[in-house]
């Protein structure tokens, strides 16, 4: 963040120590509805706009309106800012702004704090009239001290009440002002952003907010000694900042999708919220169907009629789509399905992150159902892969599954603004006459590829069917046709595989340990490995984007390392726990695939904490493996 030239306060600032840091983690936590999420997002946007790297993570309670002052009710945002690109949520927070001590405990529970974390804590609870509250507050203060946190008690509400009547509504902005002091931000920039955020709100509301912001800043300047500066590196690139679901929505528009057919399910739904608010501007529409089966059925109707559709879902919804995905494979209908993975199995942890759907997406359909599976690893890739996915779906005539997760879905990150290309858009529906000598499934025996007629194309008439069928799409009764058509559908994967390059190894090409990952863990894995390499460990990583077909050359890469393991956010039996052995153990999902694929003894370290893996969790796990041999 840039250091502000002037300080917009009517009070002389206290002299402060400014510490320059390359990255910093701030959390806002409040009861649900108190605005910590908004304040966090604003802070992230301001940081990004001033040129910092940023990664934000939403802190979301599981219930709509959880009880006040409860661990289950914590709502807010973590914002990690850095001089360079920030690729993940990082480890422990440097500063936490907490509206009460109970929501703070939910962060302590998940290990978000460390000794030395500075806590800016609302202090009104000390004098609260609510039964038990002052005691709980006092107890917590003592506990925090024992834990080595640096607590700054802040009279948030009291200060707000000096400016506005309803403190609950403005506390978040006041705290943003407080942070402006800590990071010595340019208040003009901040005000611009705040006003933009307030949008069409009344002049009075805007004035109130500015007053709160200023008050927070003033109080901070007067009362808080620590100052941090996260320097900015100059860049000429135009950047955008958004979360993964927004990136998917915009990517879908840029890719020329015109139909998103869905049924609401967390954490996928917000893709369609984003789309619904703007899709019509580019001529598209969101169909909210009566259920997930109808959603994909509707989508495949669109596909048959010439428009490659998008459908977005998550675990339980994915399960319901299984039968139709099988039809899409069998009848070779292009469709892009985004699965925003959440905690499973079953309803599981609906708002939490997991990478548990890989095997499901690969194998769920009864019978052989080869399909393409992609996994973006960054917010920018969420955008880009939509363009790739639509092209792949059409070229390879079938479903393309895009796996993201709750971490990408809600994580915000700046990335270079994509320059749209007309070729990204879907071409208009071809209505020229079809060459009647070409069969509707005229599979190229070498590639399995074929062209499909679209209703309206004269002479193209054919009847699509989920039954085994020949090149004419006629129901096949002979066994040779079944074998052949299965082969043709499978061959498409081999064809795509042929065009893929082996993944690049990050770090040295040989070494003691190679870590393989996929999806949202990219940044955290890289950061963990960088630390270990800095310590001198011979460790490298590979991150996969194509899971089906699996990227080529892995066996050869693996052979150059003493040991290979995956790091994943899904379940595996822990070989160190009593009763599990290398024999009876169930592996994490990518590890399982890689073992079958390469026959290398690929190990895994995986966890299902319902939250992203932090670099240090990974670092510790890897260190154990490095020292074990």
């Amino acid at each position, binding site marked *: 963040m840039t250091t502000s030239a002037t300080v917009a306060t009517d009070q002389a600032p206290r002299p402060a120590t400014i510490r320059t840091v390359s990255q910093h983690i701030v959390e806002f936590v409040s009861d649900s509805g108190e605005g910590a999420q908004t304040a966090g997002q604003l802070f992230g946007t301001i940081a*990004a706009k001033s040129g910092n790297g940023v990664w934000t993570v939403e802190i979301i309670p599981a219930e709509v309106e959880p009880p006040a002052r409860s661990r289950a009710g914590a709502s807010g945002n973590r914002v990690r800012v850095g001089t360079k690109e920030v690729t993940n949520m990082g480890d422990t927070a440097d500063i936490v702004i907490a509206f009460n001590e109970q929501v703070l405990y939910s962060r302590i529970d998940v290990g978000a704090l460390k000794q030395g974390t500075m806590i800016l804590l609302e202090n009104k609870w000390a004098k609260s009239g609510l039964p038990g509250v002052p005691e709980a507050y006092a107890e917590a203060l003592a506990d925090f001290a024992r834990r080595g946190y640096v607590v700054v008690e802040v009279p948030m509400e009291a200060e707000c009440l000096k400016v506005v009547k309803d403190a609950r509504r403005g506390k978040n902005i006041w705290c943003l002002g407080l942070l402006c002091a800590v990071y010595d931000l340019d208040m003009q920039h901040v005000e611009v952003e705040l006003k933009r955020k307030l949008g069409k709100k009344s002049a009075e509301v805007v004035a109130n907010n500015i007053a709160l912001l200023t008050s927070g800043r003033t109080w901070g300047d007067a009362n808080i000694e620590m100052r941090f500066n996260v320097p900015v590196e100059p860049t000429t690139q*135009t*950047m955008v*900042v*958004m979360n993964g679901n*927004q990136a998917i929505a*915009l990517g879908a*528009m*840029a890719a*020329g999708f*015109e*139909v998103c057919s869905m049924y609401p399910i967390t954490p996928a739904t917000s893709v369609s919220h984003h789309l619904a608010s703007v899709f*019509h*501007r*580019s*001529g*598209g*529409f969101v*169909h909210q169907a009566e*259920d997930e*089966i*109808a*959603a994909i*059925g*509707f989508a*495949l*109707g*669109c596909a*048959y*009629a*010439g*428009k490659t559709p998008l459908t977005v879902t998550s675990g339980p919804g994915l399960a319901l789509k299984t*039968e*139709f995905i099988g*039809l899409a494979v069998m009848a070779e209908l292009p469709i892009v399905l985004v699965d925003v993975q959440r905690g499973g199995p079953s309803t599981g942890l609906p708002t939490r992150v997991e990478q548990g759907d890989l095997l499901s997406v690969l194998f769920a359909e009864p019978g052989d159902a080869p399909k393409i599976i992609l996994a973006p690893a960054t917010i920018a890739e969420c955008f880009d892969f939509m363009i790739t996915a639509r092209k792949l779906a059409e070229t390879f005539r079938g479903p393309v599954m895009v796996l993201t997760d709750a971490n990408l879905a809600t994580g915000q990150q700046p990335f270079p*603004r994509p320059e*749209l290309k*007309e070729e990204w*858009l879907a071409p*208009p*529906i*071809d*209505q*020229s*006459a079809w060459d009647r000598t070409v069969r509707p499934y005229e599979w190229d025996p070498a590639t399995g590829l074929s062209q499909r*007629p679209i*209703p*309206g194309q*004269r*002479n*193209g*008439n*054919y*009847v*699509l*069917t*989920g*039954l085994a069928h020949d090149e004419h799409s*006629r*129901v096949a009764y002979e066994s040779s046709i079944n074998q052949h058509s299965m082969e043709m559908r499978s061959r498409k994967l081999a064809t795509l595989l042929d065009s893929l390059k082996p993944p690049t190894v990050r770090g040295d090409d040989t070494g003691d340990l190679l870590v393989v990952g996929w999806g949202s863990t990219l940044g955290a894995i890289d950061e963990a490995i960088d630390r270990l390499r800095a310590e001198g460990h011979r460790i490298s990583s590979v991150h996969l984007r194509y899971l089906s077909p699996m990227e080529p050359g892995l066996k050869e890469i693996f052979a150059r390392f003493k040991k290979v393991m995956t790091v994943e956010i899904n379940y595996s039996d822990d070989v160190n726990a009593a009763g599990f052995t290398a024999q009876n153990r169930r592996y994490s999902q990518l590890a399982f695939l890689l073992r079958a694929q390469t026959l290398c003894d690929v190990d895994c370290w995986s966890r299902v904490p319902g939250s992203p893996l932090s670099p240090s969790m990974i670092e510790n796990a890897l260190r154990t493996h490095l020292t074990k041999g």
Partner: protein
Amino acid sequence: MFGLKQDWQLDEKARHFVLEDYEGAAPRWCSGCGDNAVLSAVQRLARDLQLVPEKTVTVAGIGCSSRFPHYMKTYGFHGLHGRALPVASGVRARRPDLDIFVATGDGDCCAIGTAHWIHAIRYNMKMVVMLLDNNVYGLTKKQTSPTSRRSFTSNTHPQGSLLSPLNPLSVTLGITNASFVAQTVDWNPAHVYETLKAAHAHPGLAFVRILQRCPHFMDGHFQDIQDDPSKILLMTHDKGIPIDPSLKRLFKNQVVHDPSDLDAARRYADTQDAVPIGLFYRNEHAERYDLDTARGIDMTPQQRMKAVDAELDRFLV
């Protein structure tokens, strides 16, 4: 190119279609199966209306009746059991230019497809939906269907089925936004034809239940109604299905029913002592979801890109 000026359509005018132009693979239904009669009615209708074959799409689920698309020489979608209606809705969504016929069985529509049936009626997207109701699961060889009569002995209920049949008409008439509900019988080709013709002309989803004979598993099932025309209650009205004078003579049991009267339609749907045929209800002004889903199909790539660019800019840092 669809959505743009379609010059190529001009030469369509020169084409003339004969029955054969709508005849696909040779039907594989049992002889005497009522599906044959419905197929030929649709083919005749298509010929008479000169529907452009490549602009016509038949959609079906799975079942004997759902083999329908294979026997039409148009585009067709023989999809999954119970899921014809979502697929047809999807086909319609961006293609106001197509003619859509849906063939679905009583298992396909009223058992596994129930949710889609209810909601497709509500969406009221323009298409003709033919419920081929033989009161049994044909393709899977005689199981009870929701519309099977009580005590019907099937392979899943060898001691007789336990419940009274679900009435697809009264259910449909209970759904908000139902806009065209009719019933006919496969063995009266003239009435089937006129009913489907009215259905095709309807601006919205036309739901036609067709009592369909399955001689293979339900030999003689509708025989009584067939043999005794007085068991049919012919609903007539000048806003209803046009009735051939010969039909008027055949079906003595008649009633004048105004298809805009929903209350009366529901009452007739519940008729126990006779099988009402004709138009129960029609509302040409019901909301149509397909008018919404088709918005934007004419947009140029430039317009689309401009819009996406503008959206992207909102996220600039």
